[in-house]
């Protein structure tokens, strides 16, 4: 039996120095990593994987990146707070300051500032990005001599977590950290803490004093590194060459637009064939089960309820994975920070900071990390205006709805010679969401959140070749999360919808002498869900929707994908045509029982699409908004304004098109 000794290590360092990458390598964790600053905005805990073979149980705590110990935004305050808390919780034994070899001098000055707070015996320097092992033992010894801190150099890119792992195990973990000195702080920086730091931990200084302190650490750092060689600048040269195009006054904007159009075009057209394969497979399973199961309630539950509902959503797995794969490639490359530069002027016109591009960008995956990433904005008013508009950015949960409706109802043709009408509609919806976000932000910044813009001084990381493996991993993780959602909440809801739309059974007298299709339609209308749908129908009639779509909209307020699964179950139940297996065919075939005309038209499809562009249909987002903003007031305002926009937008589009 191994002796269980526990020790905790804090990871601190410059933004984009690779803290989360090391955290993931050592703990097997899945913290999001990228090639730009400010990806990590919260605290992450993890046990090191090699713990299972060792007596010493190491825990890692990953923190948001900081440039120094004086916060200028909310995410930086999270890190400084963790240091201030050390005395209260005695939770850490060591601090690892991760230095960035590409900016060694600046990151070492942070290391020196940390040393003066925690003491040199509790501190370790790890130099990351030494990709070609340029730092030799002599240089490491030199740094140790001059700072008193043990130093290791390594490279997360080479994936040699083993070196760091072994190194961490050789350290002694005899005593918990106590703060040796108070942290100097400006009055301004104190505002970014969630709870005001106690005065025995900090000492308030004037701006001038703080500036000279930071300056002093930099000079000190320069002295220490006198004999340490700078890394070869091959990567810097490549970066310079690429940036000459990417940040060029003439090409910059065009490159920006083409990259994003390419992503959505690829997403729409390349993932299409895979999606059709999945669709056929699911249709086949449904058919097979219909054949082998005896007709009755159980068959209907499995085929119409579960396969109709869950299957209808599963079809979109390839697109979801493909989206995250492409976004990962783009983020890893280092382009995102350039995109923030290209868009700063435009964002500024709408009262936002170019830095808000990064949270907006996360919003294309999901609003939740986007809202959290807004912590990196130092100006509180800009931050709230950004948060209030992020959910308008088209997230991956809208993807299934868009693809289903566009693929089914927008006629496929070539526009302007090169564009595909469906891919273009798809891009338009993404554009519409983003444009609406900017316009609303402008309105907010002119009214409730007036004021100056925060500074825009942003790191441009060196370009790196994106790792396909990392992109696959990201796609795989998101795919797994999507499957989990399908297997739990979507499955449960599909069963609930099936039950509600099957019972109570229709009065048999009504069904005498009716055709099979009429029986199915009357049974649905007489069910509990039918009654509910009929109640909301007057509200949605002006925007061209019938009660079935109303039910879909109602459930979509839980999560947007639920719309597709609800439609899947409802139309599978109403469908008696043996030929149609996919939800898309069923939507086309759906006829009004009274007039016999198709229920869906281009106008109805666009009305639905526009509603999904604007409405805030996501309980998860509401929860995070409450947490980040501290009250329900703003989230409820957002829910109302987005819902109103959705309804009005749908009404305009429906009226215009029909």
């Amino acid at each position, binding site marked *: 039996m191994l002796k269980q000794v526990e020790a905790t290590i804090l990871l601190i360092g410059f933004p984009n120095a690779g803290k989360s990458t090391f955290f993931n390598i050592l703990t097997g964790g899945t913290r999001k990593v990228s090639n730009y600053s400010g990806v990590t905005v919260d605290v992450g805990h993890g046990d090191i994987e090699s713990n299972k073979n060792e007596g010493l149980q190491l825990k890692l705590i990953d923190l948001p990146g900081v440039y120094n110990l004086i916060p200028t935004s909310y995410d930086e305050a999270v890190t400084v707070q963790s240091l201030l808390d050390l005395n209260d919780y005695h939770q850490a034994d060591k601090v690892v300051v991760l230095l960035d070899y590409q900016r060694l001098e600046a990151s070492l000055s942070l290391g020196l500032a940390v040393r003066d707070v925690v003491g040199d015996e509790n501190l370790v320097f790890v130099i990351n990005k030494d990709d070609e092992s340029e730092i030799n033992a002599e240089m490491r010894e030199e740094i140790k001599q001059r700072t008193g801190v043990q130093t290791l150099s390594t490279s997360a890119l080479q994936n040699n977590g083993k070196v760091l792992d072994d190194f961490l195990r050789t350290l002694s973990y005899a005593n918990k950290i106590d703060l040796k000195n108070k942290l100097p702080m400006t009055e301004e920086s104190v505002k970014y803490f969630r709870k005001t730091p106690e005065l025995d931990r900090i000492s308030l200084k004037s701006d001038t004093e703080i500036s000279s302190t930071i300056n002093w650490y930099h000079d000190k750092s320069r002295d220490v590194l006198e004999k340490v060689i700078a890394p070869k600048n091959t990567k810097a040269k490549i970066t310079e060459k690429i940036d000459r195009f990417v940040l060029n006054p003439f090409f910059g904007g065009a490159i920006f637009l083409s990259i994003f159009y390419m992503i959505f075009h690829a997403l729409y057209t390349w993932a299409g064939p895979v999606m059709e394969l999945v669709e056929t497979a699911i249709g086949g399973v449904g058919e097979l089960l219909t054949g082998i199961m005896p007709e009755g309630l159980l068959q209907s539950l499995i085929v119409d309820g579960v396969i109709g509902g869950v299957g209808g959503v599963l079809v979109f797995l390839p697109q979801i994975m493909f989206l995250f794969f492409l976004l990962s490639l783009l983020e890893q490359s280092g382009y995102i920070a350039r995109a923030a530069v290209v868009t700063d002027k435009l964002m500024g016109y709408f009262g936002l900071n170019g830095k808000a591009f990064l949270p907006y960008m996360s919003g294309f995956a999901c609003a939740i990390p986007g809202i959290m990433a807004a912590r990196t904005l130092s100006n509180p008013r800009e931050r709230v205006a950004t948060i209030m508009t992020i959910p308008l950015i088209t997230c991956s949960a809208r993807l299934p709805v868009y693809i289903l409706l566009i693929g089914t109802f927008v006629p496929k043709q070539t526009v302007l010679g090169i564009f595909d009408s469906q891919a273009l509609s798809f891009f338009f919806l993404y554009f519409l969401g983003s444009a609406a976000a900017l316009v609303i932000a402008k309105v907010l910044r002119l009214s409730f959140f007036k004021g100056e813009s925060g500074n825009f001084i942003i*790191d441009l990381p060196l370009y790196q070749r994106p790792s396909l493996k990392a992109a696959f991993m990201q796609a795989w993780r998101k795919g797994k999360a999507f499957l989990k959602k399908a297997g739990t909440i979507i499955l449960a809801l599909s069963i609930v919808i099936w039950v509600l739309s099957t019972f109570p059974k229709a009065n048999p007298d009504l069904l005498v002498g009716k055709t099979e299709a009429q029986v199915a339609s009357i049974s649905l209308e007489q069910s509990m869900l039918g009654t509910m749908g009929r109640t909301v129908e007057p509200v949605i009639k002006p925007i061209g929707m019938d009660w079935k779509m109303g039910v879909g909209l109602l459930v979509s307020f839980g999560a947007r994908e639920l719309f597709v699964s609800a439609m899947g179950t409802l139309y599978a139940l109403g469908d008696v045509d043996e030929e149609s297996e996919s939800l898309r065919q069923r939507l086309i075939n759906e006829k009004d029982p009274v007039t016999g005309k198709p229920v869906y038209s281009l106008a109805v499809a666009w009305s639905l699409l526009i509603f999904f562009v604007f409405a805030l249909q996501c309980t998860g987002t509401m929860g995070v908004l409450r947490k980040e903003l501290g009250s329900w007031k703003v989230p409820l305002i957002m829910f109302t304004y987005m819902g109103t926009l959705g309804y009005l937008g749908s009404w305009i589009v429906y009226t215009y098109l029909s």
Partner: protein
Amino acid sequence: MNLLELKVGEPRLIKDFSQNQSVYFKLLSLGILPGDEIEIMGKAPFGGPISIKHGSQTFLALRRSEAKQIEVES
């Protein structure tokens, strides 16, 4: 002269920063000190931010209004 007055591709040494504390503070944090070499890499159109190289390895971008506050040797 200030940084904004420089042409693209002309390296210069930083002389001083203006007294705008938040800008000064941020530049210091990034390790940009008086005496360092700095060079404009590109200027975004319509008065957008400018991108600069600091030393030989690090790159950053800032707004024109912020660049104006960096005094360089003429």
